[in-house]
């Protein structure tokens, strides 16, 4: 049995590895409520890690894919459509399995490219492999949102840009892109929330939690299985996610205000919680 202070000290960073806390997770009758509070909170580190990195990288790729889909050239348009269909049309859960099994087939010793040997073992770890899947997945969903926003940029805005002699990159940078972001932002907020929620799938699909370094739901399930009592761990992880969702809404709200700062108050896009629940 740990005292509450001990639980926090030994478990709050445990999801980063054995070096950062207790070597063994509390088990059996030794589990206290404080253990559950601390260890599940520790797991949130991974949820935040996956969500923040996948969203950041995904943002860039999504812009490229959205522009590709909006392009009149079939050479750009077809691959972009295909990419979006592939990742939006299939379950994220199956995507995790597929990519993991594909990575497993890579030679263990590493791939030799000319002189250098690229190691492959790290790709099978969740921090890299699952992040890669989440990145592609959110890129596809975000690209669809950005494409919709590109299509609804007011005609007048882009005509005004033409009238000022803005073309090419400068027009995109100064007019098209900010307007697209402004229009897409409320939907993008929803996408961010659901990507955060989707990070709970990582350790329930193919990717193993190496040395019991898992996310919040992984630990919640561990406790539910150990104590055979689902009524503490699952509501707790649910509560954590409600708080994280509120944080995301708050942070994205600040950006939304900045994107809309030149508009009269009544014309500003407001965030509405629109479900896009599972992927």
């Amino acid at each position, binding site marked *: 049995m740990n005292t509450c202070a001990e639980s926090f000290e030994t478990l709050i960073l445990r999801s980063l590895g054995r070096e950062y806390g207790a070597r063994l997770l509390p088990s*059996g*009758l030794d*589990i206290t409520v404080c253990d559950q509070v601390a260890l599940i909170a520790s797991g949130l580190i991974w949820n935040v890690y996956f969500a923040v990195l996948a969203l950041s990288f995904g943002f860039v790729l999504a812009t490229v894919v959205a522009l590709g889909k909006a392009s009149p050239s079939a050479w750009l348009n077809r691959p972009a459509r295909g990419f979006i*269909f*592939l990742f*939006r*049309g*299939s*379950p*994220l*859960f*199956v*995507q995790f*399995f*597929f990519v993991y*099994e*594909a990575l*497993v*087939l890579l030679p263990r010793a590493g791939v030799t490219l000319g002189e250098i040997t690229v190691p492959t073992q790290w790709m099978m770890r969740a921090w890299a492999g699952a992040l890669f899947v989440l990145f592609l997945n959110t890129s596809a969903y975000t690209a669809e949102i950005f494409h919709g926003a590109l299509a609804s940029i007011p005609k007048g805005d882009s005509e005004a840009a033409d009238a000022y002699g803005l073309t090419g990159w400068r027009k995109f940078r100064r007019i098209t892109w900010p307007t697209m972001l402004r229009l897409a932002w409320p939907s993008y907020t929803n996408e961010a*929330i659901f990507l955060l*929620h*989707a990070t*709970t*799938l990582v350790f*329930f699909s193919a990717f193993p939690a190496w040395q019991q370094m898992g996310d919040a*739901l992984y630990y*919640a*399930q561990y406790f*539910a299985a*150990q*104590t*055979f*009592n*689902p*009524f503490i761990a*699952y*509501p707790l*992880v*649910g509560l954590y*996610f*409600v708080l994280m*969702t*509120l944080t995301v809404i708050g942070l994205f709200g600040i950006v939304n205000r900045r994107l809309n700062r030149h508009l009269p108050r009544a014309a500003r896009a407001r965030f509405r*919680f629109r*479900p*896009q*629940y*599972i*992927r």
Partner: protein
Amino acid sequence: MFTFCSDPSTLPDWQWMACYLTTGSHMALYRSVLVVLLLLALAAPLALGMGFLGALAVRAQSRLVRLPGLAYVSMVRGVPDIIFFLFVPLAIDQGVEYARHRLLCPDWPDPVRQGNDFIVCPAAKMPLATDPAWVHDVWGFSLALFAFALVFGAFAANTLNGAMAAVPRAQLETGEAYGMTRAQTFRRILLPQMWVYALPGLSNLWMILTKATPLLFLLGIQDVVFWARELGGQKTGHYAYAHPDWRVWYFLGVLVFYLGLTWISQKVFDRLMARLNHGQATAGGEALRKAAA
């Protein structure tokens, strides 16, 4: 399956494949596809029904009905639904066993929770230890089905509530002008008119439900994901059909299956939307009118 399958080690390639793909465990894989479709076929109407009740509760005038409705609808917001899929079946299982325990074994001396164990009297087990295997399967499937209906019912309640609010007020006033009661207006005008507003949301929901079905695997149901893992793994010479690690191909198959499912659904919904838009005072209806003229 085929007569030439008796000794797989001597077969040429295409016959080996034909025999391999028709073994008993592959038949189980094909049956598991039916399990997925069955879950979809049952969960969709159940969720729609629960969503309908939820939407009615949210719109009710009495606060006693409205507050539980609001609690149900907002339950799924902010919490990843996979938590519900893990929590609900376990909670219901324990709840049912506890209730049966209190009813069937009132004289049981020991407490139900002893340390980390949850022990009810043998007569209260659900299903009973003596029940045949299919009862266990049906019970497990029902719990999963209920979890799906509960979560997606809350989503559907949001959509249906929005759709009911979107029906133009003037159409309801027309009903009142004809002297219809509240119930008549609801049945004759609101209900038929709301579908066109609900369909985009409901079609999205169907897509999400389709893509949530592989989570059945987490609930211990032997679904396509389970069999893909099971059959794809490396088979050594001890097996009749030895092959290396083929899991990636099996999951490619599962991926294509789901892509096909969403693709077909999209086509069906596009046609349905065109039908519902017919003659409606919406942008979609306007587009149909212009195209016809």
